[in-house]
C-alpha cells in the first residue's frame, strides 16, 4: 500500500514537472493558436483551424498560382525563410482554460504571439494574459466591441466588430428604401420600419442587442420587440410568438448554430412572413445552417465577412478558396476566411518587424498597412488604430451582408451588401417558408 502510494506520487510529480517537449529548431516561428475545437462551438472551431492551417501552408511554401505576397516565397523572407509553426490548443469555450493555455503557450512553448480565440469571453481572458506578459496577440474572429475598448497595448483585431456589422444592417435597410439594392425597386419605408430582434443572452448577444437598439434609434426605425433569450434553449416558440405579435417588417437575430436552426424551424411552423430576415453571423453562417434547413434558408440574410461569391469580384479569393475546397471539401466560410486573414496578418507583421522580439512586433503592428488586394476578404486592407476609442482595431475592415439563394440545386450565399459588390439581384421580400 505504502509503496503504491509513493509510486503514484512520484508518477504524478513527474507528469507535472515534464514541460511540453519542444523540439527546438532555429528557423521556426511559433504562433500559439487557441480555438474552441471541442464543446458547443466545435463546428466553428474546425473551420477556424482549417483556415489558419491553410494560411500557414501558403506562407511556408512558394505557390506561384496565388497572387499574394506571402505565397511568393517559402517562409518569412525577412527572417531568413523561417517557417511558421502553429501550436493549436483547444479552449472548449472556457475562459479560465483559455487563460491557462495562453500561459502555457507563452511560458512553456515560447510562442512569438497568439492568434484566437473566437469566443469573445475567452479572448478577454487570453488578452489579459498577453497584456501582462507583453506578448502580442492578434484576434481574428471575436466581435465584441468591448475588446478594443480596454486600451490594451498588445492586442490587435483584424475583424470588424459588432458595432460595424450592426451599422451595416441599418445602412442596408436604408439603402433598400432608397432603391439602392440590386434588382429591387425602392421599398416603402413603412414596410421595413417595424423591427423585431431576438438575441441570445450571452456576452455577444447582449452586446448585439444593445447596438441594435442604438442604431434603430439613430436610423429612426421602430424596434417594437427586442428580446433576449436563454441560449441553447430547448424551445423558442414563446419567443417567436412575441416577435410575431409585433408584426415586424424585419426580424433580426443573434444566435449560435443550434439556436439558429431551432429559431428558423419555429418561424417556419408558426408561418412567419417578415419582409426581411437577418442573422448576425455565427449560427446563421455555419455550414450546418444550410445543411440542416435546405430550401428553408433561401432568402435569409446574414452578415458575414466572406462568401465564395467574393471570388467573382476578387481573383485572389477565388484562388485561395479553390485550394481550401480541395483540402477541406467545402468553400471558405466567414470563420475560416477570418482565421486565414488573422494568420496572414501575423505573417505580414513578422515580415515587417523582421524580428521576433515583442517590442518590434508591437511597433510593426502599430504601423503596418496591408493592402486590400492581398486579402481574401473584401476589405480595404488591414491597418490598426493606434488612438481613439478603438485601439488595436482594424480600421480598414468591412462587413458584408449575404443572402442565401438557390442556384440550380445548390444554395449559395450571394453578396447583398455593400450594394456595389452585389453579385446578384436581391430576393425581396423574404419568400416565406
Amino acid at each position, binding site marked *: 500500500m505504502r509503496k503504491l*502510494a509513493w509510486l503514484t506520487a512520484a508518477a504524478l510529480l513527474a507528469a507535472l514537472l515534464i514541460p511540453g517537449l519542444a523540439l527546438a529548431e532555429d528557423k521556426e516561428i511559433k504562433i500559439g493558436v487557441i480555438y474552441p475545437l471541442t464543446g458547443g462551438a466545435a463546428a466553428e472551431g474546425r473551420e477556424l483551424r482549417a483556415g489558419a492551417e491553410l494560411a500557414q501552408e501558403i506562407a511556408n511554401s512558394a505557390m506561384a498560382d496565388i497572387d499574394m505576397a506571402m505565397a511568393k516565397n517559402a517562409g518569412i523572407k525577412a527572417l531568413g525563410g523561417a517557417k511558421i509553426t502553429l501550436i493549436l490548443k483547444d479552449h472548449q469555450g472556457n475562459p479560465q482554460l483559455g487563460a491557462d493555455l495562453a500561459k*502555457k503557450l507563452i511560458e512553456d512553448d515560447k510562442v512569438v504571439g497568439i492568434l484566437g480565440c473566437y469566443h469573445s*469571453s475567452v479572448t478577454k481572458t487570453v488578452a489579459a494574459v498577453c497584456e*501582462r506578459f507583453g506578448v502580442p496577440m492578434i484576434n481574428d474572429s471575436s466581435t465584441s466591441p468591448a475588446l478594443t475598448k*480596454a486600451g490594451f497595448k498588445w492586442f490587435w483585431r483584424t475583424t470588424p466588430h459588432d458595432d460595424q456589422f450592426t451599422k451595416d444592417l441599418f445602412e442596408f435597410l436604408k439603402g433598400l428604401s432608397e432603391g439602392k439594392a440590386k434588382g429591387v425597386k425602392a421599398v416603402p419605408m413603412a414596410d421595413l420600419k417595424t423591427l423585431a430582434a431576438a438575441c441570445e443572452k450571452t456576452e455577444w448577444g447582449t452586446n448585439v442587442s444593445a447596438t441594435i437598439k442604438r442604431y434603430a434609434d439613430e436610423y429612426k426605425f421602430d424596434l417594437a420587440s427586442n428580446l433576449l433569450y436563454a441560449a441553447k434553449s430547448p424551445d423558442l416558440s414563446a419567443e417567436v410568438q412575441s416577435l410575431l405579435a409585433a408584426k415586424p417588417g424585419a426580424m433580426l437575430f443573434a444566435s449560435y448554430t443550434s439556436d439558429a436552426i431551432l429559431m428558423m424551424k419555429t418561424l417556419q411552423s408558426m408561418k412567419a412572413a417578415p419582409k426581411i430576415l437577418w442573422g448576425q453571423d455565427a449560427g446563421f453562417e455555419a455550414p450546418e445552417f444550410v445543411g440542416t434547413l435546405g430550401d428553408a434558408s433561401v432568402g435569409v440574410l446574414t452578415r458575414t465577412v466572406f462568401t465564395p461569391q467574393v471570388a467573382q469580384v476578387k481573383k485572389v479569393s477565388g484562388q485561395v478558396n479553390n485550394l481550401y475546397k480541395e483540402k477541406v471539401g467545402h468553400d471558405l466560410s466567414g470563420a475560416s476566411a477570418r482565421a486565414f486573414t488573422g494568420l496572414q496578418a501575423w505573417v505580414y507583421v513578422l515580415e515587417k518587424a523582421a524580428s521576433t522580439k515583442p517590442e518590434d512586433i508591437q511597433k510593426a503592428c502599430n504601423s503596418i498597412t496591408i493592402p486590400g488586394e492581398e486579402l481574401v476578404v473584401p476589405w480595404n486592407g488591414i491597418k490598426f488604430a493606434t488612438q481613439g476609442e478603438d485601439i488595436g482595431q482594424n480600421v480598414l475592415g468591412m462587413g458584408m451582408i449575404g443572402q442565401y439563394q438557390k442556384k440550380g440545386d445548390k444554395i449559395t450565399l450571394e453578396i447583398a451588401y455593400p450594394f456595389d459588390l452585389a453579385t446578384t439581384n436581391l430576393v425581396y421580400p423574404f419568400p416565406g417558408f
Partner: protein
Amino acid sequence: MEAIKNALDFSDFPRLDLSLAGAVFAFLLLFPALPHSSFAMATMIQFLMFSLYGMGWNTIGGYAGQVDLGKAQYNGIGAYTTAVMMVRWDVPFWVSMPVGMALAVGWSFLIGYPLFRLKGHYFSIATIATSLVLKDLFEVWDFVGAATGLQIPIRSKLPDFLYLQFRHDYYYYYILLALFVVGILYLNAFRHSRLGFQLRAIKDNEDVAKSLGIDAHWCKIKAYAVATAFVAVVGSFHACYNFNIEPEDVMSLDLSVLIAMMALLGGAGSLWGPIIGAAILVPLKSYMGDWLGAASGLEGLNLIIYGGIIMLIAAVQPRGVWGMVEAVRARRRGGYAAS
C-alpha cells in the same frame, strides 16, 4: 483559545497520514522553485482553488451530509463583489474579499432558512434552482455588467499586492497556498467543534439528534454559511486571477456540480477527502484534455474516461478514495480510523 488549540491538534491521525501530509505540504511549498511548466503551475492553482471549494463544500455536504449543488452562486457573489468594487470604486482585494464573504454569507442565511426545510433530492435540486435563478438575475443586471460581465483593468505597475495583480502565477500560487493552510486549520478546528459534532450526529440520524436537543435546522444553516464563506473567498480570488468574469463563467451549474464531484470523489466528511479529490480530478481534467482532446482528433475521449472513473468510484466505494483507504485500514487493524 480552544479553537486555536483544536486547529493545531492533528493528534488523532495515524502517523503515516501526518508524514504524508507533511511531505505533500513541503512539496506544495517548494513547487514554484522546482522546474515546472507553466501549465503545471496553472493546474496547481486550479488544484488549490478546487481544494478550497471542496473543503468548504465538505462542511455542508460531508459533515452535515446535505448534497448541495448550488455552490456556484456564492462563487459568483464573491467574484462579483470584488470585481464591482475594483472596477467601480477602485477598492483593493483585501477589502472587497471580506465584503464579498459577508454578502455571500448573508445571502446564504436568507435562502438557507427555507432550503433546509427540504431533504435529500428535493434539497439538492432546490439548491440548483436557487443558483440558476441568481445567475439569470446577474445576466440582466446592468450594474454588474449583465451578460457581458466585468473586465478588471490591469494596473500600470505589476506586481500589485493590494489589488492582487501579478505577471507571474507563483504570486497567486502562494496567496492561494496561504488561504489553503488557513482553510485546513479552520476545518481541523471545525471538526473538533461543537457544531462539527452536532452535524455528524444529524448526519447519522437526524431524529435521534433532534431528540438530544440539537437544533438540526439551525446547525445546517450554520454549516451552510461556513461552506459559503470558503467558496466566496475563492470567488473573489478568481475575479482577480482571471481579470474578467461573466455569469456563465463564475456561476455555472457545471461549477456547482464539479465542486461536489471532487469532494465526493475524494471522500466527503473527512479532512483530506476534498483535497485528494481535487488532486486526482484537476490534473486528470487538464492534462487529459491536453493530450487526448481535440488536438488528437478524439473529441470527447478525455471526458469519457473522466466519466468512467467517476462511475467506477461511485459503484465501488461511494465514500470516495478516502473511504477506500479507511476500508483497507479497518480490514487490517479491525477497528479505528480517524475521519
